[in-house]
């Protein structure tokens, strides 16, 4: 397995760069490997061994990467905590059974070490131990996902699931020396660490940026691949479009200005990308490939060079099987499942998602065309069933409502059985009610009788991750939005009414 190879064998080439606003630090991968081995030696002296768990709560940094690799070396689990969502306190250490927690935040709890200690440990160690060989079903890391109760769910990822995904990606994209993969999303998201494992295995370069600095460090790094999410590419699209309009220069030139001149492709996933955004980058000469997967399944489908179809999330990758039930709800069977239960979740959560035989019920609605391309139509949870039994898939309606200039985001509810009501974020504040009413009328004109939106509640503030109305993957948190606007949704007099 790749997780065993990358510790057992020193890489033969490639570099890793850590980019911040104020500069870039570059290491040969062979030096990264050497330091990871020494850190493993130092951690072993501190008593860390197979089965122990190390927590990391820090922004992207060399120390983050070294701790992750050293844990792999020792057969220890990691738990990556995103700063801002977790606090480096005693409660965290206890709840997740951490032997040690490394953080770049101020902390005083027992068992919590400053991230800078990593450098001292690397210097202190004089040798690297023999790397542990991971068994396929052992958990290497705990990853966290948004929970329905606000408490994140923790999920252990098996070594074989990581290996299977890395192999599938490599078969599709052939990352190789000369490539430089740009990573800026938090390393606490396991998939972002895949690109470091890939570099160690395949000898290509990888650049790790802080999230805040991503757009500033991109053009300096001149990567060949950018690993992003739809919100990132949407932001880039708006910026490139605005700069092109302002300067009169071609869009392609502005795209190169932002992303650098070596892009081979852009990777997007985690949430649905707007078709217009995908088209924009493809037409600008930066091919962008959308995929599909959940924390619980890892990568299920992916468009890639030579097998890409607009509107789809690509063909199902080897080792995965998509099962559609009579309602079109997607379940995914994996040869090497991520796991068969959550390590941390509310009672009943695991049973709702994990089924025997390596099957995960995603809750998403989909279809597969005759050529094997998967299309995601919405969330099963986002289906409103009306009194007449008709099922309303809300996402296309919300997209239609937000497709014009008046509304930037819409979330649809059916507070009483009699009407559909949208909570909308206007394009600007204070909102222009007449323009929103026009948008409502336009959308309704194109919708079926049962899909008509009766009224729109104007959101008092944008939906953001910070105010809890978006997930960290920038998806609307429907229960929270419903709760925030419960009184308005329930009062038929409230909002802008359809004409």
């Amino acid at each position, binding site marked *: 397995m790749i997780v065993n190879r990358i510790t057992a064998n020193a890489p033969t080439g490639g570099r890793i760069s850590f980019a911040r606003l104020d500069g870039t630090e570059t290491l040969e991968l062979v030096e990264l490997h050497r330091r990871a081995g020494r850190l493993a030696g130092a951690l072993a002296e501190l008593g860390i061994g197979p089965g122990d768990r190390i927590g990391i709560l820090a922004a992207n940094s060399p120390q983050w990467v070294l701790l992750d690799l050293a844990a792999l070396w020792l057969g220890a689990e990691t738990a990556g905590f995103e700063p801002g969502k977790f606090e480096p306190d005693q409660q965290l250490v206890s709840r997740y059974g951490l032997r040690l927690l490394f953080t770049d935040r101020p902390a005083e709890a027992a068992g919590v070490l400053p991230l800078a200690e990593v450098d001292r440990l690397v210097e202190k160690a004089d040798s690297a131990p023999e790397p542990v060989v991971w068994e396929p079903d052992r958990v290497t890391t705990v990853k966290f996902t948004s929970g329905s109760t606000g408490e994140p769910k923790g999920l252990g990822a098996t070594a074989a699931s990581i290996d299977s995904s890395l192999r599938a990606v490599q078969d599709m994209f052939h990352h190789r020396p000369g490539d430089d993969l740009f990573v800026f999303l938090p390393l606490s998201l396991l998939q972002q660490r895949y690109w470091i494992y890939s570099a160690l295995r395949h000898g290509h370069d990888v650049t790790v940026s802080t999230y*805040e600095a991503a757009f500033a460090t991109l053009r300096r790094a001149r990567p060949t691949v950018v690993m992003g999410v739809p919100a990132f590419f949407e932001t880039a699209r708006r910026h490139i479009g605005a700069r092109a309009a302002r300067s009169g220069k071609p869009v392609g030139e502005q795209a190169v200005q932002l992303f650098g001149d070596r892009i081979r492709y852009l990777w997007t996933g985690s949430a649905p990308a707007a078709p217009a955004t995908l088209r924009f980058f493809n037409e600008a000469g930066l091919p962008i490939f959308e995929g599909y997967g959940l924390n619980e399944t890892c990568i299920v489908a992916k468009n890639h060079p030579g097998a890409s179809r607009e509107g789809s999330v690509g063909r199902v990758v080897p080792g995965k099987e998509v099962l559609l039930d009579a309602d079109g709800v997607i379940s995914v069977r994996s040869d090497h499942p991520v796991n068969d239960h959550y390590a941390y979740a509310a009672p009943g959560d695991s049973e709702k998602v994990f089924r025997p035989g390596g099957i995960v019920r995603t809750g998403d609605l989909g279809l597969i065309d005759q050529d094997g391309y998967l299309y995601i139509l919405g969330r099963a949870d986002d289906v409103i069933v009306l009194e007449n039994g008709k099922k309303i898939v809300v996402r296309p309606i919300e997209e239609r409502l937000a497709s014009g200039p008046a509304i*930037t985001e819409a979330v649809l509810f059916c507070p009483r059985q009699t009407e559909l009501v949208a909570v909308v974020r*206007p394009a600007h504040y204070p909102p222009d009610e007449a323009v929103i009413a026009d948008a409502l009328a336009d959308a309704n004109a194109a919708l079926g009788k049962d899909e008509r939106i009766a009224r729109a509640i104007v959101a008092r503030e944008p939906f*953001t991750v910070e105010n809890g109305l978006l997930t960290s993957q920038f998806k609307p948190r429907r229960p929270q939005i419903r709760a925030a606007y419960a009184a308005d949704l329930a009062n038929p007099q409230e909002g802008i009414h359809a004409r």
Partner: protein
Amino acid sequence: MHAETETAARENLVLVLTSPVEPEEVDPDADLAARYGLTSLNKVLFLTSLCDETGTELSRFTEHDLARMTTLRKVVDAVAPSTIEAV
């Protein structure tokens, strides 16, 4: 505020906002995130463009400096040539 930098800041800020706002309408003391929905990614795009236009090196700032630039006035004060050393 440094007049030329302020003009460039206003023009570049509105380019990254999702809501249509005229450059002259931007309140220099309003919180850019709360009032105008400026995300951290957009903030860097805004500052990258502003620094390009004003001939300032963005690399002179750290992520921590950026976090402190919460209003247009603070951005201008940080980026304007006469004050850059003080950041």
